Each structure stands twice: as structure tokens, then as C-alpha cells.
């Protein structure tokens, strides 16, 4: 392009040269531009595919298949004072056999029974405990169906496949079709999913236990990391002298922000569990580990917020006789607070989605009970997702996607809160 040309005729020649190359260069320009657009489209496409595949496989989990049973609460086997010893399983069985009197064979009876969830008897037990006056009468009760039936009703199992490739055989499908004709099987909104703890049976598993675990963990994280993070940010930004020691702290914080989260899990395992002997799998330890992990994020965001407060505010406060602490506490900190809160919410959102360190401190245990406090064994939402994703049953796949949707809803709420705070209180000085 810029070859040294003979000056006398050079000007004409240069223009020609430039003209000649122009088409090629414009083409290159367009190509480059298109590459940039492609890159962005690729990322957005990935985002779309991710969301579509998760929503597509997860939305059906919000419905649950239930079967109506006509049960006679035979008073001979039901003592109102000792309901725990009653044979509810037997009642459910009889009710189901009565619906299909033509089934006689033992093996067939077993197949028939497998249409019902093992939770059906518990459902009946709960009902009888709540209504002891119904003993001796007949009633019709909707009880959960087995997860295979659930999958069939939701169309995840193809009825036209050869029998050997299905989880349900032809006979079972014919029973289900008979139930469908009688209107005794239907899909309803899945409340179990939002109120139950974990379970080995997909149709009985819920996320409430994991949500509680996540809640307790985040409470610990918040009450520890917010004050400590703000205090550290204030010290480093407002008080710290510029010396080696401060430098070391700064480098440390920046590094901790980039340390893999699983290393924090190792720290928690070695220090909190093995050294301090805090209870394993508890949300207390989970919260402590996540505190250490989110602190750098909060400190860095807090420092940025403090930096954006103009020096004139500080000078004015000092000018009217405030001490340095008063200046910070009464003037700088309130002005920086929205920024700090935004950073804290974002840090909390990250902590909510974090899984790896929780695996290290034993929050992956199979826990059916809803945790009731900080020291109870518990899981957290992302860990629950991990556990379900590992389960082979088809029913857990939609549960996993649904749990992911719930987790994403929480994250969207938190991040929108952060964006709202930033938009509302953002000040340009």
C-alpha cells in the first residue's frame, strides 16, 4: 500500500492502487464485521438453546398424574387411637384390585399395583389422620401415580414403541387407557414438588427441603459477608495507609476472587469440619464457606462504590468539623450504600448458584427431612439439581429441569433487584 513510489507520477499511481484494492478491502471490512455479529449471535443462540431445552424438558414437572381410588375405610382394621399401625397399603391395594376385578394372576396384580406410587398409602394415611370421622365410610381419593405412568401421561413414553423397549407393558397401558375412559386418571398441578423434601421416587420428590437449605445457607452468608465486606472496603478505600501491608491485602483479595470455588470447599472441609468439628452437611458450614468465597466480590464492589463518591463530599464533611470516622459513617457510606448493596446482591446470587464447595462439606447427602435450623443436615438448590441430574429415572430429568427453572427464577429476581437498585440510585456527580 505504501510502497515508496516515484514522486513525479506517484500521485496518480497511488490513487489507482488504492482504488484497485478498495473492493477487496471493503469486502474484508464486511467480512470482519459479519464475524463480530456471528460471534454475538452464536452466544445468544447458545443462551436460547439452553433456555429452550431446559424449559422444554422441565415445564411438565409442574403437573402430576393422579389416580382416583374408591376406598372403603373398613373400621375393623382402623383403630382411631392407633392409626400408625393400620394397614393403609392393604386398603389401597384392595381399592385398586376392586377397580379391575378381572385381574387375578399374582404377577398381573403386581403389575397393576406398580401403576400407583408408593406414596399412595401415605396420602391415604394423611387423609385419615386429618378426618378420623370418615372411618367406616367409603370415599374417593386422588392418589399419586407411579412415575412411569406419569411419564406416559405426559407423552415422554411412546405408546407405539415395541413392548420390550417401554417401561410399561401393553397390559399396563390398557389399564391406564381404561382409567382414562372412566375419567379416573388426570393431571393436576404438582403441589408435591413445591412442598416435599427429596425422595427416591420421582413423583414424591420436591424442592422445598433444598430451598430451605439454600435459605439458611444464604442467611449465614449475608449476615457474615455484608458487614465484614463493607468494613474491609471502607478500611482499604478510606483509612488504609499506602504501604506494603495494604498492598498485600489488596493482592490477596484480588487473588481470592479468582481462586476456584472448589478450593474454598477444601478449606471448609479441612478447617470447619475437621478442625473445628462443626456439624457436617449443615447450612452453617455451607454459609461459612460461601462467606469466604463471596467476600472478595463484595469488597471489590464496595471499593468501587466508595471510589465513585466525589472527594468534595469528604472535604465538605471534614470542613465543618467532622472526624474522619464521622465523615465516612455519616456521608460517604450512605452515598456508597446502593452500590455496595448491588454488589452484595450479585455476590449472593453467585453464592446461591454455587455447588462445588458445598459438595466438599457433605451437603450432597440424601436428605428427606426439611431442615429446620442452621445446624440441621441439609442440601441446597444447586446441589439438589446435581443429585437429581445423576439419577437414572426418566422422572427425575423433568424434575431437574424444573428445579433449574426455580433456581433461575430466584436468580432473576435477585439480579433484577440489583439492576433496579443501580438504576434508581445511580448518581452521576
Amino acid at each position, binding site marked *: 500500500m505504501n510502497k515508496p513510489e516515484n514522486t513525479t507520477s506517484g500521485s496518480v499511481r497511488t490513487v489507482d492502487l488504492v482504488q484497485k484494492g478498495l473492493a477487496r478491502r471493503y469486502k474484508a471490512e464486511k467480512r470482519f464485521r459479519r464475524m463480530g455479529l456471528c460471534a454475538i449471535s452464536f452466544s445468544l443462540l447458545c443462551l436460547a438453546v439452553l433456555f429452550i431445552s431446559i424449559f422444554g424438558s422441565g415445564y411438565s414437572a409442574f403437573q402430576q398424574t393422579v389416580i382416583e381410588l374408591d376406598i372403603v375405610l373398613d373400621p375393623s382394621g382402623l383403630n382411631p387411637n392407633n392409626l400408625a399401625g393400620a394397614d393403609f397399603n392393604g386398603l389401597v391395594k384392595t381399592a385398586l384390585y376392586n377397580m379391575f376385578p378381572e385381574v387375578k394372576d399374582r404377577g398381573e396384580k403386581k403389575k397393576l399395583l406398580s401403576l400407583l406410587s408408593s406414596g399412595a398409602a401415605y396420602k391415604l394415611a394423611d387423609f385419615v389422620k386429618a378426618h378420623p370421622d370418615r372411618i367406616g365410610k367409603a370415599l374417593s381419593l386422588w392418589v399419586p401415580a407411579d412415575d412411569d405412568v406419569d411419564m406416559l401421561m405426559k407423552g415422554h413414553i411412546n405408546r407405539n414403541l415395541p413392548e420390550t423397549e417401554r417401561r410399561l407393558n401393553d397390559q399396563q397401558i390398557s389399564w391406564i387407557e381404561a382409567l382414562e375412559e372412566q375419567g379416573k386418571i388426570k393431571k393436576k398441578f404438582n403441589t408435591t414438588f413445591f412442598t416435599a423434601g427429596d425422595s427416591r421416587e420421582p413423583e414424591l420428590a420436591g424442592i422445598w427441603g433444598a430451598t430451605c437449605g439454600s435459605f439458611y445457607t444464604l442467611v449465614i452468608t449475608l449476615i457474615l459477608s455484608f458487614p465484614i465486606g463493607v468494613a474491609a472496603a471502607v478500611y482499604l478505600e478510606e483509612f488504609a495507609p499506602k504501604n506494603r501491608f495494604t498492598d498485600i491485602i489488596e493482592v490477596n483479595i484480588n487473588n481470592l476472587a479468582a481462586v476456584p470455588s472448589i478450593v474454598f470447599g477444601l*478449606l471448609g472441609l479441612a478447617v470447619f469440619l475437621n478442625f473445628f468439628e462443626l456439624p457436617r452437611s449443615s447450612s452453617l458450614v455451607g454459609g461459612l464457606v460461601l462467606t469466604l468465597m463471596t467476600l472478595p466480590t463484595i469488597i471489590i464492589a464496595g471499593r468501587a462504590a466508595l471510589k465513585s463518591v466525589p472527594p468534595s463530599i469528604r472535604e465538605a464533611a471534614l470542613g465543618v468539623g467532622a472526624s474522619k470516622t464521622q465523615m465516612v459513617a455519616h456521608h460517604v457510606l450512605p452515598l456508597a450504600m446502593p452500590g455496595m448493596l448491588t454488589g452484595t446482591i450479585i455476590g449472593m446470587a453467585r453464592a446461591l448458584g454455587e455447588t462445588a464447595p458445598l459438595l466438599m462439606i457433605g451437603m450432597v447427602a440424601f436428605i428427606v427431612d426439611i431442615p429446620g435450623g442452621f445446624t440441621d443436615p441439609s442440601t441446597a438448590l444447586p446441589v439438589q439439581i446435581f443429585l437429581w441430574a445423576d439419577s437414572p429415572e426418566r422422572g427425575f430429568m423433568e424434575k431437574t429441569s424444573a428445579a433449574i427453572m426455580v433456581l433461575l427464577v430466584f436468580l432473576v429476581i435477585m439480579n433484577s433487584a440489583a439492576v433496579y437498585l443501580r438504576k434508581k440510585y445511580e448518581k452521576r456527580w
Partner: protein
Amino acid sequence: MTPTYILIILLLLSTAGYYLGRRRALAVVEGTGGPKVLHSRPVYYGALTALWCAVPTLFIFSFWLVCESTVITDMVLSKLPETIQSLPADRLNLVMNDIKNLVNGNIVSGEENADLQAAADYYQYLRSLSQGALFVLISVICIGAVSILQNRIRPELRARNHVERVIYYILIACSVLAIFTTIGIVLSVLYESIRFFKIIPVQDFLFGLKWSPQTAIRADQVGSSGAFGAIPVFIGTLLVSAIAMIVAVPVGLMSAIYLSEYANRKFRAYAKPLLEILAGIPTVVYGFFAALVVAPVIRDSGALMGLDISSESAMAAGLVMGVMIIPFVSSLSDDVINAVPQALRDGALSLGSTQSETIRHIVLPAALPGIVGGVLLAVSRAIGETMIVVMAAGLSANLTLNPLKTVTTVTVQIVTLLVGDQEFDSPKTLAAFALGLLLFVVTLILNVIALYVVRKYREQYE
């Protein structure tokens, strides 16, 4: 009188101290000119009293909690009958566990006997005694502190300076926590790693070619000797990270260039937050996506072409990890590209170069150090990423560079070795800490270099 209640009482006492201090300060100057005679505002006298109550008692409280269990255990042990005391240490530990279980009303492993029950009662007695003592001690300290300060509060007491000094030290303590965290990480992984290297020599670990950490439970079992050569694990980590970087660096960089140089305001306002959503999605979701969607697609498309691709291929994990890192690379490069002075661009454009030529020949070389720093940070993130590989990559340590085969990574191994029952003297568990140490050191080096490069680069244009 559980610790929680003691803590609440402690806080209540401190609050009471605050009001008493403030009232005393106002009372002292009553009739001699009111609050303006005081050196500090009345709240500071209250705050000083509260701090005198809270700071020492909080120290005692936490110290007490840490020591209580050990001291009580020792005392109970010394009261046990001779026959039990002469047991070996690990059996003794079991007995102690039984006693604690009895105290907490849990199920006991052995049969209950009178000795154990007596010990449990004694334990219970000691514990309530200790908590009662703690309560009394804390109350006495609080009352003492309040009464001392009630006498010392005078108009010339420099309460504000004292309070500010204490606040200053609290602030320092909070920021020093970062250093303690780092020290804690180093010590905890180092301690267990040293124990590991006492069993398996360092060179065998670093340069060994075979990784199979499953040690046998019985001595005569097949494959009883675990092999701890970590090279296959490192290669697997590098392979997955390399695939991730091949996806993330070009896409992230081009996105950043387009967003900062070409896109109009409106496009930028929509595209940038959308990209950031990718960064906010939890890694466990990516892992599920990789295992559920990407891996089957890759396997099936491989089958179409006649390739035999494992369903836990390095490819699936790497690709998804790359997508996860795109926004990270893009936002870091966006920052550095924006930091290149406009004058450089204007100069190039005025000489007649097209926009893409300006970017390729002027802006990118100028931003290169910053971009390199960002890429290094992204690499360190890819190496340390856990959930995607745990869910989508495999467990078997193959020494291969074929992205269609199953490989395993450092983080996968740490998780599989440590999840589940552990005993802390088998090399299998300790190996996880050795891998953790390595992971920490490598990411630390990458981070330090990257942060240094980025910082130097920023200074260059400031």
C-alpha cells in the same frame, strides 16, 4: 442456657450499657451547661460503654466455645474406669463418641452400660456447669465494665477518640480476614498434601502415568495398589480447558470488538445484558445442559459420520465450558479495548484505513497485553471449573489428547475422591488435597501474572 441464649443476653447487656453510658454522660453535665460541655456527643459515651461490654465478652465467649468441648472431653475421660482408659486411642474415641451420642439422645453404636451412662451424665453436668459459669462470667464483666465507666465518664473523657480507635481496629481486622483465608487455604491443603507425599513420593505423583486411586478394602482384592500418577489427570484438564478456550477466546473477543467498535447504542444496550446472563447462569445448569443436550448431540452426530464418540467426551464438557467463559472473555476484552485512546483510532482512520484495518492493526496490538491478561484469567477459570466437568466429563483417567474420548480432570477427581465416606489416613482421600494444592498453586500463578499484566496495561494509558 445454650450458647445462642448467652449470645443474646450478651447483646442485650451491651445495649443496656449503651443507654446507661449515654444517660450518665447527660447526667454528669446536668446543670453545668448541658451536652455542649462534653468533649464528645453523648452517643459516644454510650457507644464506649457498649464496646467495653461487648468486645471482651465476645472474645471470652468465642474462646470458651472453642475450648469447652475439648476440656470437658478430657475431664470425662479421666473419670472413666481404668479398663476403658487403657484402651487404644481409636477405641477410646469410639467410646467418647458413644458418650456424646448418649448426651444428645442419639442412637449408640455399642450396648449401653452403666459406666457409659454415668459418664454421659457427668458430661451433661459439666456442660451445664460450664455454660452457667460462662453466663455468670459474662454478666460480671458487663456489670463491671458499666460500673467502671459510670465512674469515669466526665466531660473531658475523650469518648469519641476511644470509640473511633476501636472501630479502626475492627475495620483492620475485617480486611485482614482475606489474608487469613489465603493462609487457611494454603495450610489446610498443604498439611494434608504433606501427609500424602509421605506415602506417595512427589515425583511419582507429578510424573506418574497411571491414575487409579481406588485402593482395596481387603488386602487380597484385585487392584489393591492404587496408582497415583497424575499426568493423565493433568492432560485431561488441559484438553478440556483447551477446547473451552478455542471456543471462548475467538467468540468472546469478536463479540467484544463488535460491541465496542461497531454496534450502535441500542444494539449494545440489549446485547450486553443478554451476554451477561450467560455469565450469571450457575455452573450446575451448564453441567446439566452439557450432559443432557450437548453430549448426546455430539455422540449422535459422530455416529452419523461413523465415529465412535463416548457420551462423556471431553468435547461436550469443553464446548459448554467455552460457552460459559465467553462473557468473561468478552467483558474483560471490552474493558481493555475501551481503554485504548481514541486518538490512536482517529490517527489510523485519517490515514485512510478501514475500520477493520484500524482494529486489527492498531487497536488490537495496543490492547494485546490486556487481552492476554484476560485470557489468562479465563484459563485459570476453566482449569478450576468443577460442576460442568463433574457432570459431563468422565471418571476414567485416559492418557489421550483425543477430544472424542473420555478424560478426567483435576476437579472431577477431587470431587469423586472426597464425596462420600472418608477416612483421613488413606492416600485416596489425601490425594484430593494434593490435587487441590496443585490446582490452587497453578491458578494462583496464572492470576498473579494476569492481574499484574492487566494492571501494568491500565497504567500505560492512564
